[in-house]
Every structure is written in C-alpha cells, then in structure tokens.
C-alpha cells in the first residue's frame, strides 16, 4: 500500500461556535489536528462606536462605553469620563474618586472571575465555571443596589458618580471582601490545582517577553510574560498613587500564568478596596459641571488599566457639544494579535485554551 498524501483541512470556527466568546471567527488550517495557520476574522459585533460618538453629546456617549468591555463596564465609563474631565480641566470631589476606585476594582474582580470561569468552561470545567459566576453575582447585586442595572452599569458621570451607594451596599461589600480568600481557595482547589488543568495550560502557548513587548500587549497577559507594567503604577490616574498595592508579575509566559495571574490581581484589588473603605471621606459625589458640557477646543488622550489591559480614549474637541472625533484604544483587540502567532503548532484544543486566557470581550474588540 502506498502512503497517501495528506490534505490540509481548513476549518471555520465561529462566529457561531461554543467557545468563541461572542462573535469571534477564526479560520484554522489544520494538519491532522495541528494548526499550521490561523486567520482571525473580526467585526461581527461592529457597531461603529467611534462614529456614533460624533453624533452624540459628551454625556450621551457614556452608556455606549458600557457596551465596549461589558464585563467591566465601570472601567469604560471611568476611562471615558476621565478623558472628558481632563479635556475640561474638571476637579472631581474626593468621595467620588474613592467611589470610582471601589467600583473600578469591584469590576476588575468581576471581570477576572468571568475570565477564570470561561477559561475553565472552555476546558469543560463546569463546576469551576459556576463557582466563579456564583461569586460574581454578589458584585452584580452591589451594582444593582447603586445604579439599578447589573451588567452595563453606567455608574459614572462627567464630574463624579451617578448616585451615592445605599445603606445596604456597605455591609454587602464588607462581607464580600471577607469571603474572597475562601473563594479564591475554592477556585484554586477545583481548577488551578487540578492536574488535568495544569497539563492543559502549563507550557502551552508561550508568549515570550520580547514578543509581548513587540506586539504591544497590555494587562495581565503582558504581566504573565514577566513585564512589570501597569498603568496604575506607571502613570497613576485618579488617586491610585495613594494606595499601597503590588502589581503581580509572573514569568511563566504560558496559558497557566495568564490565567492564574488573575487570582493574584483579585487579591490586590481586595487590598485596594479595603484601603479605600478605610479612607473614604464624606462629601459630595458630583463636581460643579455645567449642564451643557462644552469642552474647549483641543485634543486629549487618557488611558486607564482596564481588567484586560490598557484602555485609552482619544478625543478631539472643536468646542461644540459633540466630539469632533473619538478614538478608542481597546485592550483585547490589540492583545488578540498574539493569537495567530502563538497558537501555531498547537492543537485545536490548545487554541481554544489560549484564546480563553486572552479574556477577549468582543464588544471591545469590534467596538
């Protein structure tokens, strides 16, 4: 019998595929199950956010930012309103800054929980998924108490916060903080400490330090490759310079470190929220801003550390009530570049895992 020539299989994964986290599509070239080439196709969730901004007033655009990275909507609000505040030169009250820190870090925890959950789910770790989502519910409850919605929270305004958290918010927050170490232990026990999960993630999808820097990767993915870079430390915005926290860095460069670094970050977030709770002053939560927001002519760029990486807004103002041009620097869109480079040579299974560890949210990728 002669040896038959094998044929390359071109497999279309997505946009409707169980592990594509929304509407991501990749065309995978396979040799057996080994990947020879990946072609990521984006844009199935493109809503033209940047263009929409040009026909909305500055305040009207805030709810749209919720729909960018919808798993950490306070962060998107935060990045946008701070950009406008920077353009206008508005000083916001102390209490509002502290509340923004608290909600921002809560959003970071919630987003990381979803990342852990979906990474586990992409490896059929069903229980780990529901454990993480169970705990995230408590954060959603806290959002709901304050802003009335659970996912697209829309909690910040230009000049401050939408509302003062109600009475029952504070005990809920404290008990959540107290329970977190136990939660993290549970995640570790059911997922990260598992031999099979370690086998799936360790030494898979190596993103070296050089590659990460060249691809301008940001966020936990970068820090898992051994680069100590966090906008909160590198260019402290809001009042982050007052807080004592570490930036977790891991040097594994693999899928395992990209996922487990989020556990370390949750620990640091808890630390920040505890300090904020200790120091939060009384006072107003809204600065005195004009009813009609009309920033001066000029342009501004501002960036924050989103749970997924660096989120930046660039606004050009022509002195009217609407931005002349608005540009978003999404974190996961840029992080996604690594997928086609890193995943080459791995199996389909590993690509699913690598994609999960990037924690891509298609709302932000496609804008």
């Amino acid at each position, binding site marked *: 019998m002669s040896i038959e020539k094998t044929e390359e299989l071109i497999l279309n994964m997505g946009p409707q595929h169980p592990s594509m986290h929304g509407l991501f599509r990749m065309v995978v070239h396979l040799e057996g199950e080994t990947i020879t080439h990946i072609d990521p196709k984006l844009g199935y969730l493109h809503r033209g956010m940047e263009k929409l901004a040009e026909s909305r007033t500055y305040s009207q655009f805030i709810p749209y930012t919720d729909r960018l990275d919808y798993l950490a909507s306070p962060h998107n609000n935060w990045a946008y309103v701070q950009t406008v505040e920077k353009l206008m030169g508005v000083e916001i009250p102390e209490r509002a800054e502290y509340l923004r820190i608290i909600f921002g870090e809560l959003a970071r925890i919630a987003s990381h929980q979803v990342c852990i959950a979906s990474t586990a789910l992409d490896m059929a770790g*069903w229980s780990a998924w*529901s454990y993480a989502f169970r705990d995230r519910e408590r954060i959603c409850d806290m959002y709901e108490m304050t802003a009335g919605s659970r996912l697209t929270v829309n909690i910040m305004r230009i000049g401050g916060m939408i509302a003062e958290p109600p009475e029952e918010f504070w005990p809920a927050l404290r008990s959540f903080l107290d329970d977190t170490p136990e939660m993290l232990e549970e995640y570790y026990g059911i997922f990260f400490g598992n031999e099979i999960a370690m086998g799936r993630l360790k030494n898979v999808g190596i993103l070296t330090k050089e590659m990460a820097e060249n691809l301008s990767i940001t966020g936990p993915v970068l820090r898992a490759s051994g680069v100590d870079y966090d906008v909160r430390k590198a260019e402290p915005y809001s009042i982050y310079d007052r807080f004592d926290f570490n930036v977790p860095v891991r040097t594994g460069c693999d899928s395992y470190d990209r996922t487990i670094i989020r556990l370390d970050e949750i620990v640091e977030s808890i630390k920040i929220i505890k300090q904020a709770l200790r120091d939060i002053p009384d006072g107003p939560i809204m600065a005195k801003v004009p009813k009609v927001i009309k920033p001066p002519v000029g342009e501004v760029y501002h960036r924050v550390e989103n749970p997924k990486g660096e989120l930046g807004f660039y606004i050009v103002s022509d002195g009217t009530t609407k931005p002349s041009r608005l540009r978003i620097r999404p974190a996961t869109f840029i992080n996604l570049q690594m997928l086609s480079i890193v995943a080459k040579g791995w199996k389909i*299974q590993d690509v699913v895992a690598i994609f999960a560890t990037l924690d891509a949210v298609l709302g932000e990728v496609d804008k």
Partner: protein
Amino acid sequence: METLNNLFLIIAEAIRSLFADPHSVWANLTMNVINFIIVVIIVVLAALILILLERKVAGWTSQRPGPNRLGPRGWFQTIADALKLMGKEDVTPAGADKFIFKVAPMIIFCLPMMTLAVIPYGRNMAPINLDLGIFYFVGISSISTLCFLMAGWGSNNKYSLLGGMRAVAQMISYEIPLLFSLLGVVMITQSFNLGVIVEAQSTVPFIILQPLAFVIFFIAGLAELNRAPFDLVEADQEVVAGPFTEYTGLRWGLFFLGEYGNMTAMSALAATVFLGGWQGPAFLPGYVWFFMKVGVMIFMMMWVRWTFPRIRIDHLMHLAWKFLLPLAILNILLTGLGIYIYRFVMGG
C-alpha cells in the same frame, strides 16, 4: 425472602411450564424474546433516569438546583425532553453518505442491549449465560468505535470528522488497558463466565484483591465511554458535538440513549467483576444489591465528569500507553505471582 430473591426465576419457570415441553425450542425462543424485552426496558429506563440524574448531579456539584420545574422536583423533565426530541425535524445533510449516516445511531443503540444481555442480575439470572462473557462484552462494546467513525465520516462535516478520528484513536488505545485490567480477575477465577466470577466473590469482592486493576478499569472505562475528562470525541468547546454535530431529533436521541446505555453496561460490568455483582448481605434480594452497585459506579462517573476539566489529547495517549498499560501488565504479573504463592502455601 428466598421467594423474593428468586422472584424472577419463579416467574420464568411459570412461563416455561405453560408449554407442553418446558424445554422445547418454542419455550426457549419465548424466553429469549422475553429476556430481550426486559433488557430493552432496562436500557431505556436507565437512560430516562440517568439523564435526569446527570443533570441533578451536575446541579449538585456546581451548587445550583438543576431541573426543578416539571413534576415533583423536576422528575418529569426527561420525559418532556424525549417528547420534544420526537417532535424535531429529521434532517439529513445534503452531502452526507446517507446509508452510513442513518445506520450509525441504530447500531450504537443496539450495543448496550447486546452487552447487558450477558450480565448476571442475580443468582442464575443472566439472560444469556455465556462462557466467554467478559470476552464477548469487551468485543461488543468496542464496536461503538465503529459507530462513532461512521457517524463522523457519514455526516460530511469537518467537526464530525475530527470527532470521529479522535474516537478511533482514543477508544482503540484504551481498550487494551481495559481488557488487561480484567485479566487479573480472569486469572484468579480461571473463567471468562461472569456468573462464575460473581460466585467467586462470595467471601471477598475482587476490588480488595485487585485494587490496581479496578482503578485502571475505571479510568479506561471512562475513556472507552467518552465520558469526561476523556470526552474529547464530543468536546463541545472544540469540535462542537463531534460525530453528533449533524444529527437531529430521534437520531440524536438514539446516540444519547446509546451513550447512557453503554454507561450502564460498563457500570454493570464493573459491579459484576469488581464489586461482587449480586452478592451482598441477605436482607435485600441479589438484584437490588446489583443495581445499587451499578448506581454507585454511575454516580462516580457523573461526579468525575462535572468536577474535572477535559484532558489534553497528547496527555490522553500518554496516559494510556505509558502509564495504564504498563500498570495493567504489572498487575497481571503481581496476580500471577500471588496465585503461584497461594498455591505453593496451600500445597496445591
């Protein structure tokens, strides 16, 4: 108590005595048909109960209620699901190899009935008392590999094909440690007959004498059944639903029935070979003990499925060839030594 224990044998005798000659061809044929119907009922009932049980166990491990709407605590959920499946449109893809596509689910549905027919449910209660019981069981259950490949190839879908190929690689690899793990027991009892193996466990079940073999059997059995953490064949996050991607309605339901039927059969084999089958304290009839042991095995499988993530495909192969197979051979060696020493001491 004795009556209750032999209830089914008494009924069988009663039916036989209706014939002029209780051991004529016609009497035997009638008994075989009745046995067959009973086995079919066992498979279908098991699937109905297990699908619900699986979802309840899933709920329990992941701290949610599971199905709880239809009937008392959701116990009628599977019936509703089955009715819904029957109402679905039967789609055959245009590019499919129609004959293979349609035959695959039928064959896989037959397999658990064929394997469950040789299991002794109680003393002298094997529907077919086969001298090569274990051999037959493993042989038949390995046909399911072929069904997965047929479904994967016949669907003319890339995901199905990948799933089908995975099935072949995985199931053929794990059949070897599975069979080798059973050999220790066969060496001790010197019989392939499942009835004889159960009789031999009247004092001590073989899980005590062959703990290593039991662990190997359990792992290889999970892989053979495509249960998590070895469910690469139907890994929904990777290959959507593997070979079943293109199946709808009742054809898909047949695969599902087959899967749960095979699971019952494998648990029944484990209960028979390692847990002492129908042997147990006399306050309960043998068949009750048997089904309780099967239930424990099934629960273990579900528990594992909902707790562990899925294994990596190369680790899967390493586990079979570099770990389980050498261990199984070691177990055979140790068993042989044990038998030799036992005979030497006993002066045999």
